[in-house]
């Protein structure tokens, strides 16, 4: 039976299911215990599973990831919460040099099935370091997989799939969408859920392909609704997996529409949009009616909250890019 849940609650129940299913799953992070995390994603879990399975850690991000590596070598499946995107950098060395490379260096003898949950992106009026989009750093690192959910249903299943995967996974949660609601089939088995590393058409269309992930999927869908009123049909693809990318459905879509717009909050320069544009150009060159266009954050540090709406891609900027594509 489907229930209507916020994304935050869907994640919470997904984590609960993972803890129930496998006694080796442990949650660790700052304030994840009694407080339930600053976004309450781990609310009530320590109470029910104990403080050795939901661990309030000292306040040091490298320590969280470094000890998770040791726990993983011991046979545990750590799920680490990094409190905010901008606080992941102290752990960057452990993530890039240790987590990502352990399986490769050991020729497959050591697995570190660690999930690193990061609430990411802007739009919540926060102070600096609380609104960043660090996905490209991690997508660029071999040995890591990177995913992002865009709906409560995906949040519920994807977090469970990520935890049961033996690959180290950066799990990016669009924090501005934590409170948005959607239908979730809580009783559906996770085994039959849509695959973790697969993109999906979120809204079919015929005129332009719009690629988005995480917080920008909602923006792209809103743009598609607005465009429909003007007689333009936008096909929105929710990428879901950022590394590896699942591009077969994207290529299929672009070959049909001949136009593509990529949307992300992260700065455009050397970002995921550049990779997408390059690959689409290589694969769909003769189908393209216009260059792949990008709608992204600016190549500045994340700005002060009162002007973040100017920085963040929104419905109008997506439609502007669609217009430019047609004007080519």
């Amino acid at each position, binding site marked *: 039976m489907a229930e209507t849940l916020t994304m935050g609650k869907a994640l919470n129940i997904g984590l609960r299911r993972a803890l129930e299913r496998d006694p080796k799953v442990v949650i660790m992070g700052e304030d994840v215990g009694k407080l339930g995390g600053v976004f309450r994603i781990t609310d009530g879990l320590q109470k029910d599973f104990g403080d*050795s399975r939901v661990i309030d850690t*000292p306040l040091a991000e490298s320590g969280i990831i470094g*000890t998770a590596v*040791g726990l993983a*070598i011991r046979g545990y499946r750590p799920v680490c919460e990094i409190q905010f995107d901008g606080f992941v950098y102290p752990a960057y*060395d*452990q993530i890039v040099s240790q987590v990502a490379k352990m399986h*490769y260096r050991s020729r497959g*003898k050591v697995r570190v099935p660690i999930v690193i949950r990061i609430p990411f992106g802007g739009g919540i009026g926060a102070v600096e370091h609380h609104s960043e989009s660090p996905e490209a750093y991690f997508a660029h690192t*071999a040995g890591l997989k990177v995913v992002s959910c865009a709906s409560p249903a995906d949040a519920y299943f994807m977090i469970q799939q990520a935890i049961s995967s033996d690959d180290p996974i950066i799990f990016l949660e669009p924090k501005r969408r934590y409170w948005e609601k959607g239908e979730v089939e809580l009783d559906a088995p996770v085994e039959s859920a849509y695959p973790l590393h697969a993109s999906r058409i979120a809204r079919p269309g015929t005129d332009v392909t719009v690629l988005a992930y995480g917080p920008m999927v909602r923006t792209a869908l809103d743009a598609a609704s607005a465009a429909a009123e003007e007689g333009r049909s936008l096909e929105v693809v929710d990428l879901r997996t950022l590394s590896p990318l699942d591009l077969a459905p994207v290529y299929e879509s672009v070959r049909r529409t001949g136009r593509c717009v990529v949307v992300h909050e992260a700065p455009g320069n050397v970002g995921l949009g550049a990779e997408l544009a390059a690959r689409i150009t290589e694969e769909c060159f003769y189908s393209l009616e216009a260059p792949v266009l990008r709608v992204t954050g600016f190549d500045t540090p994340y700005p002060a909250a009162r002007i973040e709406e100017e920085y963040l891609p929104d419905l109008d900027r997506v439609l502007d890019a669609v217009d430019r594509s047609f004007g080519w």
Partner: protein
Amino acid sequence: MANRGSPPDGELVQLLTPEGERIESVTGPDGTEYRVDFTDEEYRGLYRDLVIVRKLDAEATALQRQGELGIWASLLGQEAAQVGSGRALRPQDMAFPTYREHGVLYCRGIDPIMPLGLFRGVDQGGWDPNEFKFNMYTIVIGAQTLHATGYAMGVAMDGKTGTEDGEAVIAYFGDGATSQGDVNESFIWAGVFNAPLVFFCQNNQYAISEPLERQTRIPLYRRAGGFGFPGIRVDGNDVLASYAVTRAALDHARAGQGPTMIEAYTYRMGAHTTSDDPTRYRIASEVEAWQAKDPIKRMRAFLDKQQLADEAFFAEVDEQARREAVHLRERVLAMPDPEPQTIFDHVYPNGSPLLDQEREQFGRYLASFEGSH
């Protein structure tokens, strides 16, 4: 350049003097009594370990000089700290090394060829950590101390402490690493979670060229006090004291009493690695002073004085070491380079379509040269 010899505050657990005199036991500041109770055969065994470990290390240095290894990080001078602590580990104990723990690796029963694969560049050091209870070498300074801490937390979560047959974990690192954030974070974590962990710091006086004074204002073992667990300094050139102090700390940890930091006071007789030139930053008289404290010389003097070994024994050990070194050399020279396509192996446990595609494209590219010369 200062001439560094004995520790400035004098505190040091020692059971065997540089002249080979035995000290029966030493009582540490917290009342722990440090002593060893070895059979004659065990004393001889430690001597054998020291000699073989040094000989294999010298062979690796020679192989590097001859172009067979890309680089080598010699343990010369640190044999006693490594063999003493390595032999103090019980079979169930887990070790997390740096990249210089060839002596500990030897004590764990790993084929000494393994690290040479790493330094030759044919692999990245792929022994099985769980089979040997000895993790892969870690080159990023101090990163492994957090892994050791997490592993030790897991040991405690598994209920494997508080008993005589419990498990303990040892983290190796050097004096330079004590400045790293990760090492300090691991001190905090281990203390807060009462992890069954021994921090084994080989203070060999230099972090490449930088002397200890550039890393600390207080003796390293006293750092532990600020983190809430005991710190003890041992003569790292004394294999007996290194054994006794490590065994006591491991048993303390396995009993559920939490972490200990050991500072093994020693000296890196050689260069940091074969790429380094230590004459640029330290004086000859300092090296000479430490030669007088050589770990093997004093063990031999002890065996000699106590009539635990004769010339025939020493000659036989030298011969065994020589044979093992020759065998090592032969096998290093025979190590095949990996196949190019193995670049793509083991990036992910579950694989990746991107890598499948790249592997296939690279294969086609290579195949395009077939038949051409």
